């Protein structure tokens, strides 16, 4: 057994770290959400005014709704891309499995910003896509809605988060014992029935984990709307950023952050319960 002093010694650094850089900031954020700004100064005047403002001002609610809609779209799109990819790799890629797996992972090594700017280059009015469309004479002038729209945000976030969705799904597919697939075929089920009756139900924990990643990460994203979102693609994190920056209303920004945090934590909680329900050990 380790002595008490030794245990304290090894657990102190991580505890200090978590306290200083996680618990303290959260506590400050939480406190700010109940404070107010008067004449350009944050005053420690405890009240619920910030939350009332959020509730009564339809602008914030609209942005939050749009953010959730974008996050849901990103989740759906990355599932539609990530699941078939993971399924193909796990069950049908054969000898090319390792190579394809690396190809899926490689984009994660490229900076988020670089990938964002790449989409700007592709979608812009002088961009690759518009040039291509005009070259084909499908359009005569640049299509404007491609860039600076919720569509562009969904596209970029889907590109960025698909590997995050792919990974847990792939892991759960890899964990399905292959004799189960053989047993299903042996009992008379073709590939389609085997997929829906055996493979899909057993991959639900991975699917839920992937969906949670995509939704929660998209919910808090502020770079994609900044780079390709424009005015119509603004998301809730951009509002928080401007409230903490130009608008200098930290308390209101903190109140929004607390709301997002509550939504996120509830989602994580629900998804973990659902994952437990669908795992069979």
């Amino acid at each position, binding site marked *: 057994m380790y002595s008490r002093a030794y245990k304290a010694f090894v657990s102190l650094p991580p505890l200090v770290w978590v306290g200083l850089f996680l618990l303290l900031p959260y506590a400050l954020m939480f406190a700010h959400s109940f404070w107010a700004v008067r004449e350009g100064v944050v005053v420690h005047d405890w009240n619920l005014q910030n939350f009332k403002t959020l509730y009564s001002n339809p602008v914030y609610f609209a942005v939050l709704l749009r953010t959730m809609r974008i996050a849901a779209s990103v989740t759906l799109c990355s599932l539609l891309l990530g699941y078939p990819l993971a399924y193909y790799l796990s069950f049908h890629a054969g000898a090319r499995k390792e190579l394809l797996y690396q190809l899926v992972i490689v984009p994660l090594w490229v900076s988020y910003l670089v990938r964002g700017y790449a989409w700007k280059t592709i979608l812009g009015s002088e961009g690759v896509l518009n040039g291509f469309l005009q070259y084909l004479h499908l359009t005569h002038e640049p299509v404007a809605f491609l860039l600076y729209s919720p569509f562009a945000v969904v596209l970029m976030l889907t590109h960025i988060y698909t590997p995050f969705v792919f990974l847990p799904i792939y892991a759960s597919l890899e964990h399905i014992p292959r004799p189960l697939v053989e047993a299903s*075929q042996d009992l008379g089920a073709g590939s389609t029935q085997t997929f829906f009756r055996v493979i899909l139900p057993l991959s639900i924990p991975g699917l839920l984990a992937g969906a949670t990643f995509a939704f929660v990460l998209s919910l808090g994203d502020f770079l994609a709307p900044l780079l390709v979102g424009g005015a119509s693609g603004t998301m809730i994190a951009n509002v928080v950023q401007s409230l903490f920056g130009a608008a200098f209303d930290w308390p209101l920004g903190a109140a929004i952050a607390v709301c997002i945090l509550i939504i996120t934590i509830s989602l994580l909680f629900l998804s973990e319960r659902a994952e437990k329900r669908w795992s069979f050990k």
Partner: protein
Amino acid sequence: MSSAEANLTNETSPAPGALLEARGLAKHFGKIQVLKGISLNIASGEFLTLLGESGSGKTTLLRLVAGFEQPTAGEIWMGGERLDTLPPYKRQVNTVFQHYALFPHLSVRENVAYGLRVKKTAAREIGGRVDEALRLVKMQDFATARPTKLSGGQQQRVALARALVNRPQLLLLDEPLSALDANLRKQMQSELKALQREIGITFLFVTHDQEEAMALSDRIALLRDGNLEQVASPREIYSHPATAYTAQFIGQTNLLRGEIHRSIITCGNLRWPVEDGDGPAIFSLRPEAIRLCTDGKRQTHEVKFRGAVRQQIYSGASELLEVDCGGGQLLRVRLPASGPITGEHEFVFSLPDAIRVKE
């Protein structure tokens, strides 16, 4: 030709009324040839065991019949229909997997109903047949349980019910008892045999355990390095092994290597008359075929020899002696348990018990 050889050729030639017929089956995995041209018939209602060491190709042969692997060469026919070109889900064959492969997300009842559900059987019929199958394996009380909550023996029964509920013409069993502990294994062996008699379905059973094969089978097909070594009933394969390998794999034996010269075989100090022509020969002599010689009289069809007991292993009902009969030749002798034996003794065996085998 000895009777064992005659038997071997008889058993592998096409038999009328065979349920399953394998013709020249070969299977390569890359450069490795796992099966080297297997021809085998299984009669309807028969319990046939594929016996062999690991790597002998027995599981591959089973997987070819189930449809999980495609043969490199050869054909499989079942009831006048070509089987090897069909996908697994179109074959009238069901499998009991080595580790049961029960669906963890489905209850026992749903597992058993799976095959009927995917074939769109009417719901009312499914209910009745699932109940019947669960009763057959005495698992009706566990219908709503999850397979992961069951013991190995119980999972084994569910796997059996899940296969049998489809009323397959042929049931494939891939070492189904190997994951069970020794006592449960013995019990499941006798239950399995009783079940097979009761329902009359043809069983193709894979095992590496020769005792299990002897206890269960109507016939044993012994595989060695992708070839059929011998196919015969347990009694036949034990009493008339065709090859030295078979004689050693099934039970214990003494292999006597010698030279035949003018119808007399000489193996060390042992000599006896044979009908075969001159040349080297191997004979298999089971330890229990050798007895202590109690009276001095010598019968014409018996071989007598003197030997010194080197070792004695007591195993309850019998004793296994290691007897040195001169010239460095050691013979194993199994006697009914009769107390310690030491020193030199006279031993005797009957000529028909020395079986000529091929290398």
